[in-house]
């Protein structure tokens, strides 16, 4: 890209909610006034010290931030190349990065006088985080979850119900995460007066992609400080790696480094059984093309007629046929690189993390770790990789056991 265009990669989106050609506000008229008022409220909150004071207080005392930046010495030694750091967002309350964003949106919802919160969830991590914060604030919470996911993520469904949320098993369409999002939007359009839609990733109509990114950016901001504490003043990471479904943990890690040209940025999509013609994957950037869904223009898995296809991945959290619009933009301008990792590679990484570091990762960051395993050996010892360990793997042990051919007796 030309140097004279290099003002900043951090100024987006524009007033129309666009990152280049991506993003926007592709919603029905009924919702349009709602997202405009959300945007207005968010713009106010962004520069309101009270808002951030409340966020910081809860991040510290409720979530447990900052999460550690951990030098993974045995992984580093084993791979024999670059120095590997893990950003430990799996240690957050509720076990993933999702709560960073949920707190922000729920505080906003309270400021807007909304009393009912709805959310969509795939693996259940965003649903659990939303149910958690709603319980803490005494808000009514309704979570839409694909019927298939309700079945395969039973522990998270029970968690949400314990936390007082109503979990609705979505059977419309094919009963997957995208259908859960459709049904959440249908709920929102029906209950506009008291309801706030808490979206779990950097997608949806403007201002959601920017707002969720801003809330998740705490990840990258902390990394910036923590790495200097450990590696000396001014030291930046050389490579950032994060897994991408919708892309919120990745945006949170990447965003504060977009204007540091020396920082190499890599997003890892779910390659499923391989990015092939049979579409047995969820790699929207690697295997999809631009389209419009769920309020934004972005890369989507779709057929020749513009009908949306289902994704396929071992990880329910990456099982979405789209990706946040800012990632589509970063992909097109070349500021970030996007790769795909297969189920098999992710499973190997999952086991390596358990064996060498004593960390049971979620299947989502296992994809990121699999890419670390690929590139770390090719890099010199003074090259620093920071990978976002965005969730813990407790929820995934049944899936992993099944794939490893191990039977777990869950009966009492």
């Amino acid at each position, binding site marked *: 890209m030309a140097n004279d265009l290099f003002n900043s990669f951090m100024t987006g989106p524009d007033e129309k909610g666009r990152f280049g050609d991506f993003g926007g506000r592709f919603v029905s008229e009924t919702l349009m006034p709602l997202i405009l008022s959300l945007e207005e409220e968010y713009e106010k909150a962004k520069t309101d010290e009270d808002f951030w004071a409340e966020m910081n207080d809860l991040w510290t005392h409720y979530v447990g931030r900052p999460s550690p930046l951990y030098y993974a010495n045995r992984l580093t030694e084993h791979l024999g190349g670059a120095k590997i750091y893990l950003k430990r967002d799996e240690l957050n309350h509720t076990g993933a990065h999702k709560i960073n964003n949920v707190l922000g949106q729920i505080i906003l919802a309270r400021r807007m006088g909304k009393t009912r919160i709805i959310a969509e969830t795939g693996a259940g991590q965003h649903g659990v985080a939303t149910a958690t914060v709603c319980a803490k604030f005494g808000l009514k919470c309704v979570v839409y979850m694909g019927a298939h996911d309700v079945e395969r993520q039973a522990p998270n469904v029970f968690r949400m119900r314990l936390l007082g949320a109503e979990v609705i098993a979505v059977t419309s369409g094919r009963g997957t995460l995208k259908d859960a999002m*459709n049904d959440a939007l249908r709920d929102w359009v029906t209950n*506009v007066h008291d309801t706030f839609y808490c979206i779990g990733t950097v997608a949806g109509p403007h201002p959601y992609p920017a707002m969720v990114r801003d809330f998740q950016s705490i990840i990258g901001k902390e990394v910036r400080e923590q790495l200097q504490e450990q590696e000396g003043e001014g030291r930046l990471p050389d490579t950032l790696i994060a897994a991408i479904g919708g892309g919120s943990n990745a945006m949170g890690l990447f965003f504060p480094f977009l204007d540091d040209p020396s920082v190499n940025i890599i997003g890892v999509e779910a390659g499923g059984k391989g990015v092939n013609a049979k579409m047995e994957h969820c790699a929207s950037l690697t295997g999809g093309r631009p*389209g419009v869904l769920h309020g934004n223009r972005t890369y989507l898995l779709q057929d020749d007629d513009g*009908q949306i296809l289902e994704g396929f991945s071992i990880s329910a959290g990456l099982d979405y046929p789209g990706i946040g619009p800012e990632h589509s933009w970063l992909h097109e301008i070349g500021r970030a690189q996007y790769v795909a990792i297969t189920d098999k590679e992710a499973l190997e990484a999952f086991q390596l993390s358990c064996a060498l570091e004593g960390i049971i990762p979620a299947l989502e960051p296992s994809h990121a770790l699999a890419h670390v395993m690929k590139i770390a050996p090719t890099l010199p010892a003074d090259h620093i990789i920071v990978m976002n360990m965005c969730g813990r793997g407790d929820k995934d042990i049944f899936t992993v056991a099944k794939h490893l051919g191990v039977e777990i007796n869950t009966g009492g």
Partner: protein
Amino acid sequence: MTRIDAKFAALNAEGRKAFVAYVMAGDPDYATSLDVLKGLPGAGVDIIEMGLPFTDPMADGPTIQLAGQRALEAGQTLQKTLDMATEFRKTDNITPIVMMGYYNPIYNRGVEKFLVDAKAAGIDGLIVVDLPPEEDEELCIPAQKAGLNFIRLATPTTDDKRLPKVLQNTSGFVYYVSITGITGSAAAEAGDVAPEVARIKAKTDLPVIVGFGIRTPDAAQSIASVADGCVVGSAIVDEIAAGKPVAEVLAFVKGLADGAHRT
């Protein structure tokens, strides 16, 4: 002047209300759907809304969602939907056809190519649910330039401040969505709708047609009486979903049309 404009001029001259019927193109299959489509004008339908199936119809209730799924499973595409309009036009060059759907299949085809093809197929107007005025440059403005009407939805959440923006690039007619919700939901009361229609008509000369939640001839009559006409969709699609023969579906439509025209 499009067929839509001509139709309203004619209705106006006769002092009649417009009855608009929605069917999903290709539901339950291409041939049956085309038969229904061809029979609609004879059943008293003034304007046809032809649904373009999409996998993710986020503003629609279960009835229209399932209709779209049936159509897609039967092999319906955007091209076949245009083909249906072309077939229809061979025997009817008066009844306006409004294509109603979501943006992605159109965007995927390419806006310019789509507009040329839609015009050639005899489509008169577009209702694209996920294109609010904020995204007018995508399709609305190019469509008007291509000689197609772009019909906008106004809703109970469209307040007075926002209304001029919604009306600005609207043509053909204004579709007032009588409730906050999805298609096939509970009906609005004529008493609640009347002031809303008046509010819109104070700001535009375009006809105002009311839809969502109208299922019976009586409801069609009472809603049409406080507007320039009404739309029925899910109730008709339910008849098709029940596997009724085309003649029975059309008889049901005629009942609704007669209701709307009684006013």
